[in-house]
């Protein structure tokens, strides 16, 4: 008759599973807390550089322009329903056809890419030449919508060249223009 096999040799070492209940409690509390405070849309702000306005006699707004004797560029981008006009204190930059916008609409949409590129060319020539080579004035026709204005600001503030952001004209002012 055989011996009864040894119990010690066959007994496996029982591993107690780790107690994860307190961990679970922690998760259950932390996750709702973070979920409620999470921001899923990121907001940003665009700073406007406006001189303090002074009222004219008939309720119009006159801007107090700083008195400077240096050469001024007064670069202005005007948004119209036909495209962008780029002008300076001296002249209006004409498009390929005389009288057309500098940057005409591209398939019915504004061509922000071309605007950035054009402003980049201007920036290259204007830098160190003018006192206000960081400044740009934006004008728009009355019915241009807010998104277009903001996108134009983006296009005139920076340009992405070869994956790098280049500063163009970071001081953006809005002008009411003459309606």
């Amino acid at each position, binding site marked *: 008759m055989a011996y009864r096999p040894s119990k010690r040799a066959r007994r496996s070492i029982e591993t107690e599973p780790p107690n994860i209940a307190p961990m679970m409690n922690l998760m259950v509390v932390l*996750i709702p807390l973070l979920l409620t405070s999470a*921001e899923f849309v*990121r907001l*940003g*702000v*665009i700073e406007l550089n406006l001189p303090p306005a002074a009222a004219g006699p008939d309720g*119009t707004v006159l801007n107090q322009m700083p008195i400077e004797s240096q050469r001024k560029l007064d670069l202005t981008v005007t948004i119209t329903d036909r495209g962008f006009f780029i002008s300076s204190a001296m002249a209006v930059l004409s498009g390929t056809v005389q009288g057309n916008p500098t940057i005409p609409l591209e398939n019915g949409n504004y061509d922000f890419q071309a605007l950035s590129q054009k402003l980049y060319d201007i920036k290259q020539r204007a830098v160190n030449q003018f006192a206000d080579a960081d400044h740009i004035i934006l004008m728009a*026709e009355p019915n241009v*919508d807010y998104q277009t204005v903001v996108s134009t*600001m983006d296009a005139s503030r920076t340009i992405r060249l070869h994956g790098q952001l280049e500063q163009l004209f970071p001081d953006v002012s809005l002008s009411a223009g003459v309606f």
Partner: protein
Amino acid sequence: MAFIPSRRKQHKTGPGEVRMQLTSMMDMFTILLVFLLKTYSTHGQLINPSQDLTLPVSDVQNPPEVGLDVTVSSDWILVNGKPVEKTSNLAVINGYIVPKLEVALERYAEEGRKLEAAYGTKFSGKVTIQGDKKLPYHLLIKVLATCGQSNFPNMRLVVYQREG
């Protein structure tokens, strides 16, 4: 002689205690927790975007700042959440100043200056402007001009940051 283990004895151990399998759930929670911690921002929501307007989208990186909140939705102009003027009335106003908005802003400017005199908290004239992305330019410029006129020259336009 080979020992044959008793079948009866093996089955006698029975179905014991059944433990819930929590490991996969823990994995899920851990991933969620890491994701939420990464998106967590310490300064919280300074600006609550209004429900009835869609802000424009922009590439700017500047984080929002606190300031007087002027909202131009499709129906109303609100200053710190209180309606002051109908947006539809804006188009018929001559000149660039919106009288009711000016009155409301002047009152806030007055309060700000009183605070500055009493407690020394600097009144900087900061105003954050939330406008619907469909807002036409001639209405926007009227609101901006009124803000500048009413001692709030420090204007900031609130936008959604573009993804990526």
